[in-house]
């Protein structure tokens, strides 16, 4: 059965080439970030030096260090990525992968790879894309649009707080954003490994960036392969910005949103409805 399947998929790929006049590439899409073009062959050499220890020779996240690491290294053969600017279920853009390699992943063993040149990083991305057939011949995914940020005033924060209650973010992230909601202890990723929801009081950075735009993108596209779903179908852009502004108040930093919030609480704390099961629909 297996050789037969392989034979047929080869035939199908060949048929698609004929059908589309030979424009469909049989290898992974070309990799471009800004005006830098990646080459998988060069990326291969870099991968064998810098990445293979955790991500493994086959790119499946089973490198020799993997057993000591939690969260586990990314399995590139699955073609599923957390940090994307594209809708849930889609591949990330080259820029997304480039940003992830550059940024690293806070609270994991993946460091920022700023020591590598931009050309090195783009070459690595070109190589990473050879591990999953999902990159082959697929159309380049497009990023979601992020409209300009709305004013981060107290009205926006309060609306965002209502959204946090209405969309039941607290069921995983907890009423105060401490990552201790009623479902938190049951969460597993798509490989059945336990996973914790983000604790907003733990710091200022998120796995997928630290700007308000990054925060907007994270909950709108969701983190594929984890329990964090996409909310783009449920939030208008202005509602999403409101939620961003509220989430900033949960963090232990003096962001403009947090200062506005602290001022508000000094005089209005008693007026707030609780967040959580007793909060009802606000």
């Amino acid at each position: 059965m297996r050789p037969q399947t392989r034979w047929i998929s080869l035939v199908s790929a060949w048929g698609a080439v004929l059908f589309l006049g030979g424009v469909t590439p049989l290898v992974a899409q070309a990799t471009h970030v800004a005006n830098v073009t990646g080459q998988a062959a060069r990326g291969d050499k870099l991968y064998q030096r810098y990445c293979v220890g955790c991500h493994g020779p086959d790119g499946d996240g089973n490198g020799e260090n993997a057993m000591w690491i939690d969260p586990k290294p990314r399995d590139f053969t699955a073609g599923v990525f957390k940090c994307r600017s594209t809708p849930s279920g889609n591949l990330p853009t080259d820029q997304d992968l480039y940003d992830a390699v550059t940024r690293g992943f806070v609270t994991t063993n993946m460091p920022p790879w700023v020591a590598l040149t931009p050309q090195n990083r783009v070459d690595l991305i070109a190589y990473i894309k050879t591990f999953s057939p999902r990159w082959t011949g697929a159309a380049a995914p497009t990023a979601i649009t992020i409209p300009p940020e709305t004013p981060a005033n107290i009205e926006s924060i309060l609306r965002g707080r209502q959204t946090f209650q209405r969309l039941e973010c607290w069921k995983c992230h907890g009423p105060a954003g401490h990552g201790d909601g009623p479902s938190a202890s049951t969460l597993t990723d798509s490989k059945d490994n336990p996973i914790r929801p983000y604790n907003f009081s733990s710091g200022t950075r998120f796995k997928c960036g630290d700007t308000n735009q990054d925060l907007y993108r994270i909950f709108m596209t969701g983190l594929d392969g984890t329990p964090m779903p996409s909310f783009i179908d449920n939030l208008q852009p202005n509602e999403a910005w409101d939620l961003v502004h509220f989430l900033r108040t949960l963090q232990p930093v003096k962001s403009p949103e947090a200062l506005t919030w602290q001022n508000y609480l000094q005089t209005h704390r008693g007026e707030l409805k609780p967040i959580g099961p007793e909060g009802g629909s606000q």
Partner: protein
Amino acid sequence: MNRHLAPAFGALALAALATAATDAPATRPAAAGTISGTVTYTGTPPKMRPVDMSKEPTCASQHATEVLTETIVTGPGTTLANVVVYISAGDQPTPAPTEPVRYDQKGCQYIPHVAILHAGQPLEIYNNDKTSHNIHPLSKVNPEWNKSQPPGSPAIKTSYDKPEFIPVKCNIHPWMHGYFAVLSTSHVALSGANGKFSLAGLPPGKYTVTAWQERFGTQTQEVTVSEGGTATANFVFKALPY
């Protein structure tokens, strides 16, 4: 014969992926036959556990009686329900029906527990509850997505291109488990509460019939259907307690 022509029809062959393995029955008008049978088990299947929905009162209040997990649903005697029985080889390729399959979230349960879909067939997912669900089908062959669906949201409309048994879960309500059975054939049935199934409308010929149960895996049988006849295929799964 078609091996030499195949490259030219490559794009079309995609649709025929799963069915190209054996010679297709001749396409002359013939009275269609049926394959029917019963799915049973031997041994002791694990007991289904009661679901504790106390953390979600709006769902708990919808159930007057105890809700049990649906991983293994047994019927009278040793019969097994909710088993997907389908033609896995020997079938003519069938086009995807345009009628959408409906998948409901109600009382924090998936209804049906196993949804049968043709590859490419529209799928509509509804939230009938007063709580948010997130629909997270854990597909591996098809792209994996995870979408939130608060109360009152419109249906999520989607489809799957490739055959696959996809576990579905809601991360917010960890007891919610279901399956999308995406197949490349329309000749498929779900065994009933009495373990019985029937695959009708089959032209005479040799078929491979596969039965799939989410815990016990798959079993296959070769079955020959005569003109207008009814062939029997009974499946027996070995049940282990855990």
